């Protein structure tokens, strides 16, 4: 019986540890999509409305500096979340809208980077430029800062 009680106690401890692990894992997998720019940028924040405007190709001038958007294509999910939650358009609608604005109004489409390191380099080289990325992507990059959370997976 004592052995059985010991086993039960061990089992209970294992369960508790597992729960703690699951809980901590859940916390680390909670994802936030961040608006990012170079540490050297003078910008401290930007409203979601201005982010949408900027990435739709509308010229946006803050403190006499014209901001430059860069699309992060390193993670298709990040792009989809960004388009749906910030731009409020599907990828197809977004591409068509951008092209239409270029052709009508002479606006420019944002450049797109599939390699996160090249994206980071572009942000560092051009301090007026902004992009978006997952919080865990930003953790592995130096010289960049977050200007705020664009979207967070709050269910986990």
């Amino acid at each position, binding site marked *: 019986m004592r052995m059985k009680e010991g086993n039960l106690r061990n089992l209970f401890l294992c369960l508790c540890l597992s729960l703690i692990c699951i809980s901590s894992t859940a916390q680390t997998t909670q994802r936030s999509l961040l608006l990012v720019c170079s540490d050297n940028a003078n910008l401290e924040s930007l409203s979601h409305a201005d982010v949408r*405007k900027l990435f*739709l190709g509308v010229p946006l*001038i803050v403190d006499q500096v014209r901001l430059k958007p860069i699309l992060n294509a390193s993670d298709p999910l990040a792009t989809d979340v960004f388009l749906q939650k910030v731009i409020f358009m599907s990828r197809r*609608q977004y591409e068509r809208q951008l092209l*239409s604005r270029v*052709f009508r109004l*002479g*606006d420019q489409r944002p450049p797109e980077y599939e390699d996160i390191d090249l994206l980071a380099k572009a942000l560092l080289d051009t301090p007026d430029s902004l992009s978006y990325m997952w919080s865990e992507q930003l953790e592995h990059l130096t010289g960049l800062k977050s200007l705020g959370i664009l979207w967070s997976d709050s269910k986990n």
Partner: protein
Amino acid sequence: MNRDHHRVGLLYSLIVITSIVYSPISLGDATGEFLLFPHIGAIFRSDLADDSLLDSVDYTYGVDIFATSSYQNFLFLGELLLAKQEQDIERLQLGSIVGDSKVWLGRFHNPVGYWNTQFHHGSFLESSISRPSIVEFEDDNGLLPIHLTGLLIEGVIEHDKQGLGYALAVGAGPELSDELKALDVLDPGSGSHDLSLTLNLYHEPVLYAPTRYGLFINHTEIPATRNGLDEIRQISAGVYGNWESQRWRLTGSTFYLRNRLQQLNGVLTDNFISSYFQADFKPDDQWTIFGRVEWTVDDENDAYLELFPQHIHDRILGGVRLDAFDRHAFKLEISGNRTQEDNFGQFMLQWDAMF
């Protein structure tokens, strides 16, 4: 201006546009776009009248060259069309960003209605092959001043996540000889051109989203050298709407046109109404099915319309568009058309692309 000089002018324009986009300043702080929109098409017509000026079979081809460049608050936009029927500078604009507005000088699309500012010579952006006849280009039996040369101010005022857009244009309009002729920026001294004014106001229920509803008015004084005409004073006004969802796009507009034709022996005033409605349905990412109806009211014996015998008064059309191979579009369009003197069927095929 003779044809050789015109071609030399076009070549210079092409070099200038390319130089601006690829200049060291463009590769530095400035950004820009350089796009090519080639197209090849075939047109087959049936039931043409014996004395019709239209061909039963026709082929089209060409490329629309488009470039933009911006440096700080300054903007450049150029569009050059090199096609079978015409080679022309369609747009040549220098602009500046002033607050939420853009102020442009040069030759631009007249913001009359919706279609003319949304689409132009790069038909890759259009679902259909043809344009509604009421917004047809000047050199293609068009009735309206499609291109102006002068000043354009446009922008959107934000209010509670909605937009109130505006475009105000003041410039030189077209003249009427054998057809309407917009001012040639390569030879601005040629021809006779008078004032054209346009105001376009629209509402965007969601700021910068494609759905919008608007109204417009234009006044143009058109010097004329045809059929004993001296001048035409034209007023066009109307409403338009464009609604878009994931799969559907509905576009429509109604134009009221009043023309005062000043002849050597008196003045004649006529008016008519022209409308179009187009529906696009996208069952998936590749296919688009579209249909459009166009109709004109009070067009019988209209003195202005009689100057354009090949202009299409009524049309019903349907077609499909297939998008494939990354920015290539294959289109098919079938229509029934009524002009002043003719009723004919038309079958069109076209390849469009964007590079």
